[in-house]
């Protein structure tokens, strides 16, 4: 039996096509993937992301525990700042990718919906000898992402707080739509955007207020379908597709969240070795030349020999052509390298390009 997010009724009312996703009833689309995608790139869109896991970490050793758990550097976090990171198994495989906020008396860890229980079990296991508390806040908190170049103007109508003063990956506690909440300038689209965290009981009211504030700007609800095309155009990794327990963050292009010189942490030795020896494969961006759309698991070929596989692939509504991510053996990962993808409709020529696919995003 699927769970419902606090926005379920609003989403059904808005015409969402409901599917089962990570144990929740979620909308895969409303008007259609392409029009929703365009709304977010050009105006503003609203995503219910309450299915994500929200975990509070607190106690005297919370910082020490998290610093050991994740690969990025926790101690550099300012108050209300967000950090993107991964946590790894000792062999370097990725447990999950995470967003961690530093708040006044605790850290808030946001994890992928499909990994929520696995992640919490892993965190509790690692926290055994530490004086820290791990509390699941998933059910009691709503999480709403409002994304698009017009977002600041829309949300400013609902709060007296100065949203323009919030930098990228920074946040603030404020009253918005009459509800005390935490608001951060974060997202998964490449556009300027905010994420709102607040008690679940206010979900319907906040939803209505946000849509009323955005009605003159063409605000629209956005489903999981466009969420995926938007993130893929930016080369944001999706756990389960592009990263998982069999991939390490170095080959996934996430070296920037691995701080090898911060002191010891889980998988440091392995990741140091991979960094020094260079990974044997890398996650690359592939743009289709001509027609065709690579799909996950399609084989990537060079000189008639298999050199990799696609992990994510879609039609890019912004570029109007097929784009994909895939792991490719070293030697074939440089920009402008031409490769072939074996798709269901035949062989498609692709070229390795530099991320992101979409260069005009508005994010700050």
């Amino acid at each position, binding site marked *: 039996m699927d769970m419902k997010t606090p926005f379920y009724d609003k989403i059904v009312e808005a015409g969402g096509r409901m599917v089962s996703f990570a144990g929740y009833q979620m909308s895969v*689309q409303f008007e259609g993937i*392409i029009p929703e995608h365009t709304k977010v790139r050009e105006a503003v869109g609203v995503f219910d992301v309450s299915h994500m896991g929200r975990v509070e970490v607190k106690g005297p050793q919370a910082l020490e525990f998290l610093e050991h758990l994740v690969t990025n550097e926790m101690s550099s976090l300012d108050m209300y700042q967000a950090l993107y990171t991964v946590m790894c198994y000792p062999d370097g495989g990725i447990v999950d990718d995470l967003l961690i906020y530093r708040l006044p008396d605790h850290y808030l860890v946001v994890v992928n919906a499909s990994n929520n229980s696995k992640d919490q079990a892993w965190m509790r296991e690692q926290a055994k000898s530490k004086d820290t508390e791990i509390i699941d806040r998933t059910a009691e908190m709503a999480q709403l992402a409002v994304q698009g170049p017009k977002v600041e103007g829309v949300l400013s109508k609902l709060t007296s707080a100065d949203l323009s003063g919030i930098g990228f990956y920074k946040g603030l506690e404020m009253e918005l739509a009459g509800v005390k909440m935490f608001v951060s300038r974060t997202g998964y689209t490449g556009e300027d955007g905010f994420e709102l965290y607040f008690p679940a009981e206010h979900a319907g009211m906040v939803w209505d207020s946000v849509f009323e504030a955005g009605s003159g700007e063409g605000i629209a609800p956005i489903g999981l379908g466009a969420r995926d095309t938007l993130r893929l155009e930016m080369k944001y990794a999706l756990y389960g597709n592009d990263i998982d327990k069999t991939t390490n963050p170095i080959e996934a292009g996430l070296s920037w969240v691995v701080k090898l010189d911060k002191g010891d942490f889980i998988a440091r030795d392995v990741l140091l070795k991979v960094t020094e020896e260079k990974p044997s494969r890398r996650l690359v961006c592939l743009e289709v030349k001509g027609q065709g*759309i690579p799909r996950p698991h399609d084989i990537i070929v060079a000189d008639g020999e298999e050199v990799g596989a696609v992990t994510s692939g*879609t*039609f890019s509504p912004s570029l109007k052509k097929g784009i994909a991510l895939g792991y490719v053996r070293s030697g074939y990962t440089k920009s402008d390298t031409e490769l072939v993808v074996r798709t*269901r409709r035949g062989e498609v020529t692709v070229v390795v390009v530099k991320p992101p696919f979409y260069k005009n995003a508005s994010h700050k």
Partner: protein
Amino acid sequence: MANVPENLRYSKTHEWVRIEGTKATIGITDFAQGELSDIVMVEPPEIGRELNAGDAMGVIEAVKAVSDLYSPVSGKVIEVNIKLASNPETCNKDAYGEGWIVKLEMADPAEAGKLLDAAGYKEHLAAEGH
């Protein structure tokens, strides 16, 4: 609820067929276009190709999925809808009209009797849980 016109025949793989004499015009049903959503590429068969009923004859790419197009009847391809090359979304907007995909000269017009009628297709959709 998907639109299922009374005057057409249907396959279990969600193609529709309009029979006029020995000619069969084929497209995908309203249900199929709704499931695929956002069609971005339609690859029809080559003109002149001989097909048996049930053959995969083309490919439909949507943003999130790719699907084969099957021939509901046997016959020879006599025309394809070239407008879909530049406007594939027509299959979403007008599935039973301007969104037609291919026309066949049927090898055996009696095959049309094996296809589902509107009531049969609606039952098929219900049986698949839609």
